[in-house]
């Protein structure tokens, strides 16, 4: 049932063990097909020629694979534009969010001060508010501040939404680094800032990168705010994808090709950051 059979299973020969585990593997295969088929289907659609896409029979592999959709995406629809917009918004958000969160996480991890628990909780409640509750007033505020329809509106929003979780992740990672490391450096005459920059930051770097990957993915993927806060010139990828649904029909070739291009960077980042993100994510829940 729970895979804990292996300790008992040693009493059985290999084939018996395999047969007993077989239903589990079949179930796993079914679940994986369910989870992954949509991606396969998106890819296959993106390399089908136009007439096969809307043909009378559905084909599971294109009779003539072509990258026309990708070519058209960049030549006719200038997809590079939303990609650059997304890259700008996501990169700047990542840098600001990481800097601000790192400072706060250092304070929470290394100082014991009055109101520490209150402030931590304040940060945590941040993520409890419904997205749409913030969306409406922020739209009005950004409009009054004159930054609606500029990348700043998105950068400011995404930075704020990612700060609480970044602080929490970084705080957890920092707590795992013993205080004695800095104390040794400070005994040798370094001040707090030097000790942090020279000793702690290099050791923390992989965790900072993982946290950065989370921030980047959030900003790269976000749609609800992006569609309200951008216009033609600075719309990001998610908005551009949705715009392929037009009055005259849906450009499925464009959507699927654009979709594949969109998830490749996040998948690569996720695979590298995965281990540390999962550690940070589950530390509390598992312990708790």
């Amino acid at each position: 049932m729970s895979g804990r059979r292996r300790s008992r299973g040693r009493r059985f020969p290999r084939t018996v063990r395999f047969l007993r585990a077989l239903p589990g593997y079949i179930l796993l295969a079914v679940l994986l097909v369910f989870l992954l088929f949509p991606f396969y289907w998106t890819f296959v659609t993106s390399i089908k020629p136009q007439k096969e896409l809307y043909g009378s029979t559905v084909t599971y592999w294109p009779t003539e694979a072509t990258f026309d959709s990708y070519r058209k995406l960049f030549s006719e629809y200038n997809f590079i534009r939303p990609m650059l917009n997304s890259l700008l918004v996501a990169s700047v958000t990542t840098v600001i969010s990481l800097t601000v969160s790192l400072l706060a996480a250092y304070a929470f991890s290394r100082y014991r001060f009055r109101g520490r628990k209150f402030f931590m909780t304040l940060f945590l409640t941040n993520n409890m508010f419904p997205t749409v509750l913030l969306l409406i007033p922020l739209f009005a505020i950004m409009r009054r501040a004159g930054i609606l329809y500029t990348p700043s509106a998105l950068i400011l929003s995404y930075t704020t939404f990612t700060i609480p979780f970044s602080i929490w992740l970084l705080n957890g990672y920092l707590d795992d680094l013993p205080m004695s490391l800095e104390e040794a450096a400070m005994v040798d005459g370094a001040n707090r800032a030097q000790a942090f920059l020279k000793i702690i930051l290099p050791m923390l770097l992989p965790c900072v990168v993982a946290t950065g990957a989370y921030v980047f993915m959030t900003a790269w993927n976000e749609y609800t705010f992006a569609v309200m806060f951008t216009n033609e010139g600075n719309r990001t990828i998610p908005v551009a994808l949705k715009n392929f649904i037009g009055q005259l029909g849906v450009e499925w070739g464009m959507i699927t090709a654009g979709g594949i291009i969109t998830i490749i960077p996040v998948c690569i980042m996720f695979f590298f950051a995965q281990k540390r993100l999962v550690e940070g994510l589950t530390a509390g829940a598992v312990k708790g």
Partner: protein
Amino acid sequence: MFPVAGPVAGCREIEGSAMHRRKFSPWPYLLIAPALITILAVVFFPVLNAILMSFQSYDLRRPSQIRFTGLANYATAMHDPLFWQALLKTVIWVAVGVGLQFVFGFMLALLLNRKFPGRGIVRSISLIPWVTPGVLIGLMWRWIFDGNYGVLNDLLMRLGLIHDKIPFLAQQSTAFPSVILTIIWQGIPFFALMLLAGLQGIPEELYDAASVDGANAFQRFFLITVPSLKNTIFVTTLLRIIWVANSVDVIFNLTEGGPAYSTQTLSVYVFNKGNTLNLGYASTMAILLALALALVAVPYLKKLFKAQEESR
């Protein structure tokens, strides 16, 4: 927003690190100031704004008529059949969606907890739906569900389960189940990930001891696995409820709430109202949604406080 778990337990206290316990130091306050100011400005200030807006007739199409109207928006909501329908849809969406995410996620976690060659790769790959943008999820499934060229119709016909193509998203009876199927697909990996981490923390000896005592697989599951994962299950389920209730992008890109509002949850309703620039009424419904979600958020935060107390 990209669904990553919020904090699930209090911070850990490190022995002997309370360097600044006695002497007052402005440094920690200065260090958290940038984060604090941003959050007050971009989260708490807008929430106050929303509360104010909900008491006003605030329609950007008629900017000259913006004025306080007291509880008028709330009264409108109480008499708005679409509001009640959206609330009901939200409850079903969350209950069925999160419920089945949990069941299949748990199943996947148990299966991934076995040792087999290539487990690491399988685990990474099965998490991809979790990092996929909500827009793309909506659009990918919209294409799969398509009534004319959709692959789901083709598969079902090849298997002989149906004879005529079904316009899954275009008819009221099938649209809502279809969007729920999509959100289940999105949420399975998250539950699997969290529960798998929990499973790996259960000491093997517990199972061995139970086996010696003659417990069968079912007894081991319900007497060891489930109780050991109690906290993980509680925390992940509450978090997931909050995210799923708030989710706009998946439904909006599948159906935009249609046909005939049959897939319009409260979040989507607020979003659609916001798009028509009736911000006062949209804020009112967003606040009602927030109050409903507080039923879930408060126990979650309480748990958090308790965990923090215990770690002291």
